[in-house]
């Protein structure tokens, strides 16, 4: 999971999806994923429709399909888990490509893969059309505890700074001929982690001083507040509402 974290998924753009207020998008994606998770697995067509809905959003947002698909790699560990299911789940057996697999296991695997994939795709769409800053504003608007938003905001502000420090330390190690090859080198790497912690903590103390020097008393002043018009909410709700329709059909058909 490490590699993907260095860069955010945001893709700059001016599509209608990019312009939607962040909290509307957050609510829409959460609603959509909730609906997907609540859909009966037997309604295969419902999942196909969900995929079509997401594809439509991606098209409006001008997010290329390749970009979306690449990000699904994040699921791999659970794909492995899902692929095991047909073999370990007890129940009626059936033949598939000459292997004996269990029917409930197949359903289980399908369920996890379909819902998981739709969930990742929806999150990727959110992340690729919403800037970091506006995501934080969205969370703030959704009344997440201010301290939590502040911590998240500091984490994002200094994530790069600290990752850079980590990279410099690694370069310094390698310049002196050290290459971590196995367990015996863990001591050196742990020293790196320890040093990184000390640097991070001390930077936290300095940041605090800088904040106090400019009048900080425990709460960040709200400088920007995002707002959404009725129309924007209506736009944003299109995705979860349509999905809910599909889901309800799935339960009744």
């Amino acid at each position: 999971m490490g590699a993907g974290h260095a860069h955010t998924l945001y893709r700059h753009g001016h599509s209608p999806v990019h312009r939607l207020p962040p909290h509307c998008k957050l609510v829409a994606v959460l609603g959509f994923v909730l609906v997907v998770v609540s859909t009966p697995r037997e309604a295969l067509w419902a999942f196909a429709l969900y995929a079509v809905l997401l594809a439509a959003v991606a098209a409006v947002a001008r997010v290329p399909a390749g970009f979306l698909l690449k990000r699904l790699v994040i699921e791999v560990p659970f794909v492995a888990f899902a692929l095991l299911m047909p073999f370990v789940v007890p129940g009626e057996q059936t033949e598939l490509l000459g292997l004996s697999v269990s029917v409930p296991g197949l359903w289980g695997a399908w369920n996890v893969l379909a819902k998981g994939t739709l969930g990742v795709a929806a999150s990727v769409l959110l992340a690729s059309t919403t800037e970091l800053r506006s995501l934080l504003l969205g969370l703030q608007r959704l009344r997440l505890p201010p301290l939590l938003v502040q911590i998240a905001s500091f984490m994002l502000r200094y994530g790069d700074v600290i990752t850079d420090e980590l990279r410099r330390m690694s370069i310094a190690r390698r310049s002196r001929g050290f290459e971590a090859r196995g367990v015996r080198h863990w001591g050196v790497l742990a020293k790196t982690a320890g040093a990184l912690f000390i640097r991070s903590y001390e930077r936290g103390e300095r940041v605090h001083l800088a904040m106090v020097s400019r009048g900080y008393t425990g709460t960040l002043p709200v400088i920007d507040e995002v707002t959404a018009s009725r129309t924007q909410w209506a736009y944003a709700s299109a995705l979860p509402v349509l999905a809910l329709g599909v889901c309800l059909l799935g339960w009744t058909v």
Partner: protein
Amino acid sequence: MSTVQPAAAAPSLEVSGLAYAYPDGHQALFGVDLTVERGERVALLGPNGAGKTTLVLHLNGILDAGAGTVRIAGLPVEKRNLAEIRRRVGIVFQDPDDQLFMPTVREDVAFGPASAGLRGAELEERVTAALERVGMERFAARPPHHLSFGQRRRVAVATVLAMEPEILVLDEPSSNLDPASRRELADILRDLDVTVLMVTHDLPYALELCPRAVILGDGVIAADNRTQDLLCDEELMRRHRLELPFGFDPRSVAVPRP
């Protein structure tokens, strides 16, 4: 303390008899006396460990004086005045990454005035004005970590200017700057009409920007004079581990008159 009583004429900074020991017992300041008049630009010189940072942290009440007093434009640095003191004293820390903690440049510059209660158009105006003074108005919407080091230092100065401070305190303003950024920052600082206290090891920079300099040594003000005279006093300089760059002769440059 001072003979001049009216608040308008009170010096920007007035430190008298300041002594301080850290909680672990290590004493850093042994009775500092320093007065900086309004509009003056003063360099605070001294070797590592002389107590420069400790002194700076007293100016806006982050550290409590063990003995002695600090006054900013006549207002004593005390618990009940802290909000006003921190508005009046703008400290630019050494590492701009520590200073720029908000997600965008604009919000960072707005942080100080917004903490003081400013909102809306007035806040916006203050932010734009501060960014214009350091020539960074085009970068308002950018996240700080997308800027070069020199740009970040200039934004750090803007974050403090936005509070319209009585006195600007700069901790090693020229460190890690390439020559061009160093000169650009000097141009900005020279044009500011606020009192400046500049903590630095960069002696040519001190000479260029500050007509007056003081040397902090062993926790007291060991010398206080025209910058050029101080730098020319080789014996004094050697005693305080202050060294001029190779080939630099402080006598050879024309400097602003105090």
